[in-house]
């Protein structure tokens, strides 16, 4: 199961990385003579309302969603580590952020920023805000671990030996936090992929014409079209496959299997 998950994720990542070479057309190219075309040799998954090739858009969307979710997760982990390391001074901030549902906090922050942005800026805003809004849960776990570490005898010994705080952090504390950081990073990636999908459906994610799994899923709001072109479901199927693969590699599953 795990091997299949790893192979699938490698294949999807490779397809995302080499999207410009694998995609028959540019993601924004319109074939105005063939809007909503069915699947054919020319358009393997048909075309959308605007006559854009679905297969090409799916490849580019995979690139956006699958490569930027880890980046957003990394931002969250770094902020969480910083806030937790700062100690009780910033723990109130964690409590405050945990008091607002994640998506609500996201839309409040999103509302302050311009809504009509260029596609590239919208990518940075979407995934940047995800990273910024999602640090509180890992911070809670880091804070608990750091509190435990601070009471450890070996840390007091290291301090008494005159080792500098930076060295204590890097050599003594970080090895204890590394496993938690990696586990949290792995937990955040699928949740950010799902969040981007929900935000894209709401029109708060990556801006058109740049595709992402979220804005491709917006086509599901017209279920009558699915019967004519089932390839509309392809982004959902790919998203689900990737999510299941990530879950199979989830740290908590290791206990079970």
């Amino acid at each position, binding site marked *: 199961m795990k091997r299949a998950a790893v192979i699938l994720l490698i294949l999807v990542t490779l397809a995302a990385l080499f999207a410009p070479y694998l995609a028959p057309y540019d993601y924004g190219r319109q074939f105005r003579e063939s809007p909503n075309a069915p699947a054919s040799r020319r358009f393997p998954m048909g075309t959308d309302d605007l006559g854009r090739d679905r297969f090409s858009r799916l490849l580019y969307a995979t690139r956006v969603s699958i490569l930027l979710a880890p980046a957003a997760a990394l931002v969250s982990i770094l902020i969480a580590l910083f806030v937790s390391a700062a100690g009780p001074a910033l723990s109130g901030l964690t409590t405050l952020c945990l*008091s607002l549902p994640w998506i*609500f906090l996201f839309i*409040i922050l999103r*509302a302050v920023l311009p809504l009509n942005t260029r596609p590239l800026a919208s990518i940075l805003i979407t995934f940047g805000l995800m990273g910024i809004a999602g640090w509180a849960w890992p911070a809670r776990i880091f804070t608990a671990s750091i509190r435990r570490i601070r009471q450890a005898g070996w840390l007091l010994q290291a301090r008494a030996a005159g080792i500098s705080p930076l060295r204590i952090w890097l050599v003594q504390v970080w090895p204890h936090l590394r496993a938690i950081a990696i586990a949290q990073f792995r937990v955040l990636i699928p949740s950010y992929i799902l969040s981007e999908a929900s935000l894209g*459906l709401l029109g708060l994610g990556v801006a058109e014409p740049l595709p992402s799994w979220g804005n491709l899923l917006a086509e599901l709001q017209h279920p009558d079209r699915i019967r004519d072109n089932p390839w509309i479901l392809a982004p959902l199927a790919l998203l689900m496959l990737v999510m299941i693969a990530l*879950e199979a590699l989830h740290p908590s599953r290791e206990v079970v299997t």
Partner: protein
Amino acid sequence: MRKVVSNLVTLIVVVLAGGFLAAALVRYSPGFDSIPEDLNPDISPATLRALHEQRGRENSLPVFYVRYLARASRGDLGVSQNLKVPVTELLRERAPVTAKLILWGTAGGWVLGGLLAWMAVWPRHTAFEAAAFSVSGLLLAIPPAVLALGFFFYQVPLGLALSLALLPRLFGTMRALLDDCYASPALLAARSRGIGPIAIALRYVVLATAPQLIALFGVALVLAFGSAIPIEALCGVPGAGALALEAATSRDMPLLCGMALIVTFFVTLVHAVGDLAGERA
């Protein structure tokens, strides 16, 4: 008692901080400093400058925040810029719809998650465990909004979509809780005495895990509100979640602020109750 006081203090501090965040967002949102006189060509630049300076003094963040809190304490959360209706009135209309969806969704997710967790733990059979994990994993892989769209088009109650969206998020914790419980010596002794599975489940499992399950219900309520926002917005449910999204997309800051204050209050309250329940465990 000490824990209650500490939770009460946290509640007050977090709501005040949430209010400050909301007020800061309003204060520094683009266009806040503009005044109607900006559009009047008859007013001289010097007068305009003086008017802006006056507005800046009147609306410095601390002054603005104190005023906002004073009005909020009287139940006045301002008027929605977009809908031209008092925020409290809007919330009074929309909140019951969301509350109903969230309560049904959470209760359903809690019961279904509990049943699935019980199925994974009680029979002690790999096939049941694998089936429970597969159902949970499959549901976790579907965005709640997509699940809700499917339910909406087939006219299945949206509360069930919310339940299924919450189920995998509750399943993991419930399974771990039940796993600990079923491995406890008291329960093993009860089993060896031949006590039936239902009696064991009620006497040794439900009672023993009740405080944690109540705390988990609180966490699920908060998760449910997060999932209710896209569900309401996409399926045209006139609830507070859809209102929050409308406020964000139309940059209706008074409405967004009012909602932030109310949501912070309820979420902190739910966490505090959950904490107290967990403490009793």
